[in-house]
């Protein structure tokens, strides 16, 4: 039980060494008898590729080697470089093992942990420079990052409240409840310039200020963890890797606005995150960091988790509130804003996980530290989930103002297979795409909006030349059509009509006037919809129309899909002269569409194959089988 700040500091001091051990250049730090820390990523991505079993096997092997006194194995949150998972890091060196399998565990234990020789063949290739082995912090992926919200992810054991305290955890809460007035707290948040990390980028301090200004009484602090944006998973990572940061921040928010109850609304698709957060809440409660008389003051705060059940719209704040109240997740008109009339009609603040994760740091390090990062109107850092056609799929945290090119080419390692960057989609289904011509745009709230996109929660999907932008717009629209709640007419009917026009175009039945209709309808839906979902749903259409109108026209006028994606607008063909007649393609074909001709090309032994376009389902399964001869093509 932690009764006061002295108790807290005692634990912090006891664990600080352990945490410092896991920082870059940790050679100088000691952790008592322990000589090595083995950090294994326990995020969803790596867990999916068996990191938990790897940890168990590792511990067994360490025990078998008799070095369990000297090595501590920790299952942490996400390191960010999900593409390379499962990831294992060994400190103090910071050696970076990637794509570890169960089979490689023994070798790592025996060679590296026992004999002190890192096993090069399992190391992430970028960290091996001849004889020299770089630590993960020296890789381009990490070098350009600035980890604030993610600072503890991949560093601490999320199941251990003491490790969190070892990173100065809960000291911000301690400072707030003992040294600061609620007004002080809000002023600090306001001065930091932090804006909401989940969607529109509303200044967090202003939100708190509104709620604090409401008459005393029941108020609520809500965390939006309904990260529905497909391809974005920063909130999940924080919940999995650093759950106490959220708890601490929500308690601080409670103190600031005069609330003593908090709700975290999390997607049910995130079982690991929910489990770790629940554990953390239980631990914090047990230690007295939640509940009555927190740290010996008369401040009281407690919180609970509510699970979503599969509705993207619940990421919209008013829909989230109706969902917490146990109803269909349908948004409510604003005003009244939640800060005035929120959960069960009471003043409520809603921030997302990433926003909260920044709060304790702002309190501890000060508003000016935070506002020294970023651009004029977008302060601090932002976490992005890199996905799509990019080498380093994963989570990155960059100072606002970093260019898109830096993110994709340097941190993200560029586009694989020598393909060209075509566009990046930010903000998920609510956002838009940024074309290659704007590759050097500095990423911040306002610049993205100026590009017809938005920050959203931070999904960043990279597209190469194989992506059809009309199809992409269709994909996002299908998503919003599916996820529209159906309450207001513009979104319910409008998005469907929009999708129908896109379908018409991708099926080769489009007319030029459809483009005008798309624009008219899209702009209407934007201005008339009830909530953020509808108001942003047309963005993918509008931004692809603005940046890739040619592609639309190619679909409509030439009846061609330049990227070769829209199935109705191309057929698979076999170049009879290139075909060696090996027949591998026919074996892959699920539709029996490939047969042998009588034609034997000059110099070939076997008769060439052909595709019956009436049978072909255009699944593309044949394509990889002909990688060697490149005889199959789209035309």
């Amino acid at each position, binding site marked *: 039980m932690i009764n006061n700040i002295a108790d807290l500091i005692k634990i912090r001091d006891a664990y600080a060494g352990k945490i410092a051990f896991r920082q870059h250049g940790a050679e100088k730090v000691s952790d008592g008898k322990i000589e090595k820390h083995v950090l294994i990523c326990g995020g*969803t*991505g790596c*867990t*999916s*590729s068996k990191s938990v079993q790897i940890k168990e096997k590792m511990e067994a092997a360490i025990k078998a080697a008799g070095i369990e006194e000297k090595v501590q194995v920790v299952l942490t949150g996400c390191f960010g*470089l*999900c*593409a*390379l*998972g499962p990831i294992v890091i060994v400190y103090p060196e910071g050696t970076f093992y990637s794509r570890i399998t169960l089979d490689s565990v023994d070798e790592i234990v025996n060679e590296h942990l026992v004999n002190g020789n890192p096993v090069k063949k399992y190391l992430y290739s970028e960290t091996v420079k001849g004889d020299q082995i770089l630590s993960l912090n020296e890789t381009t992926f990490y070098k350009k990052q600035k980890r604030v919200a993610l600072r503890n992810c991949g560093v601490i054991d999320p199941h251990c409240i003491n490790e969190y305290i070892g990173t100065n955890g809960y000291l911000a809460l301690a400072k707030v409840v003992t040294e600061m007035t609620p007004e002080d707290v809000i002023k600090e948040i306001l001065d930091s310039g932090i804006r909401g990390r989940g969607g529109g980028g509303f200044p967090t301090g202003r939100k708190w200020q509104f709620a604090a200004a409401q008459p005393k009484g029941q108020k609520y602090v809500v965390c939006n963890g309904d*990260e*529905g*944006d*497909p*391809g*974005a*998973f920063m909130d*999940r990572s924080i919940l999995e890797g650093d759950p106490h940061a959220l708890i601490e921040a929500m308690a601080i928010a409670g103190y600031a606005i005069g609330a003593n109850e908090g709700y975290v609304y999390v997607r*049910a*698709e*995130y079982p690991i995150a929910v489990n770790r957060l629940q554990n953390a809440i239980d631990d914090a409660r047990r230690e007295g960091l939640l509940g009555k008389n927190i740290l010996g003051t008369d401040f009281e705060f407690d919180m609970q988790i*509510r*699970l*979503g*059940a*599969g*509705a*993207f719209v619940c990421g919209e704040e008013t829909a989230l509130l109706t*969902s*917490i*109240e*146990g*109803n*269909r*997740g349908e948004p409510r008109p604003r005003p009244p804003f939640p800060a005035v009339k929120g959960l*069960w009609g009471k003043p409520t603040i809603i921030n997302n996980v990433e926003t909260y994760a920044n709060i304790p740091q702002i309190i501890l390090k000060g508003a000016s530290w935070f506002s020294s990062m970023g651009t004029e109107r977008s302060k601090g850092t932002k976490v992005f*989930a890199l*996905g*799509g*056609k990019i080498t380093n*799929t*994963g989570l990155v945290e960059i100072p606002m103002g970093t260019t898109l090119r830096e993110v994709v080419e340097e941190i993200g390692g560029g586009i694989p297979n020598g393909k060209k960057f075509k566009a990046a*989609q930010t903000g*998920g289904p609510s956002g838009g795409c940024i074309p290659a011509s704007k590759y050097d745009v500095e990423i911040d709230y306002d610049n993205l909006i100026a590009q017809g996109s938005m920050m959203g929660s931070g*999904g960043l*999907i990279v*597209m190469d030349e194989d*992506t059809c932008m009309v199809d992409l717009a269709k*994909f*996002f629209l299908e998503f919003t059509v*599916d996820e529209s*709640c159906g309450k207001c007419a513009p979104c319910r009917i409008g998005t469907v009509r929009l999708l129908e026009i896109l379908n018409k175009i991708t099926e080769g039945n489009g007319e030029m006037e459809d483009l005008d209709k798309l624009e008219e309808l899209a702009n209407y839906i934007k201005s008339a919809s009830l909530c953020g979902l509808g108001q942003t749903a047309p963005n993918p259409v509008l931004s692809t129309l603005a940046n890739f109108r040619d592609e639309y026209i190619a679909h409509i006028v030439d009846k061609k899909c330049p990227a070769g994606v829209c199935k109705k607008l191309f057929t698979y063909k076999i170049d009879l002269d290139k075909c060696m007649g090996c027949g591998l393609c026919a074996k*892959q074909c*699920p539709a029996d569409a490939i047969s042998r001709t009588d034609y034997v090309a000059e110099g070939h032994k076997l008769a060439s194959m052909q595709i019956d376009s009436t049978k072909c*389902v255009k*699944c*593309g*399964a044949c394509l*990889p089988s002909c990688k060697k001869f490149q005889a199959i093509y789209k035309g």
Partner: protein
Amino acid sequence: MKKKMTTVSFNGTKEQEIALDKVIAEHKDQKGALMAILQKAQGIYGYLPIEVQQHIALAMDIPLSEVYGVASFYSQFILNPKGNHAVSVCLGTACYVKGAGLLMDKLESVLGIKNGEITADRKFSLDATRCIGACGLAPVLTVNEEVYGRLTPDMIAGIIAKYN
């Protein structure tokens, strides 16, 4: 999104009913507990047949239409039991861009059912799921709790064979 009406007949057990009543009692004083109760009820029965929803409506003293309105709104609530092996393909953006659609096509042909259906022997059900956050492994699918990542369509048959 239209919910498929229940096609199997209800054969809930006494134990399940006791478990459900326990869940309802646990949430008795909690505001806005309907969703949590439905989630746990689905955990108990595997799906949410009318009998279960009616039971919840009566116990909570709310109209059945309200319970059903909530159950039919959220995609995770289902009115039919899943197959013994629930196959879900992630159709999140990262997976989609990396060809998850092709995985779905392949699964449909391998299992002989469409997205959202269940095989006649109830062995497999096939669904599209929203982003599960394993974007680093894209494209992914899950069978029950097991995650399979970095897939290509030619790997599908092998995965399904493991459960057959």
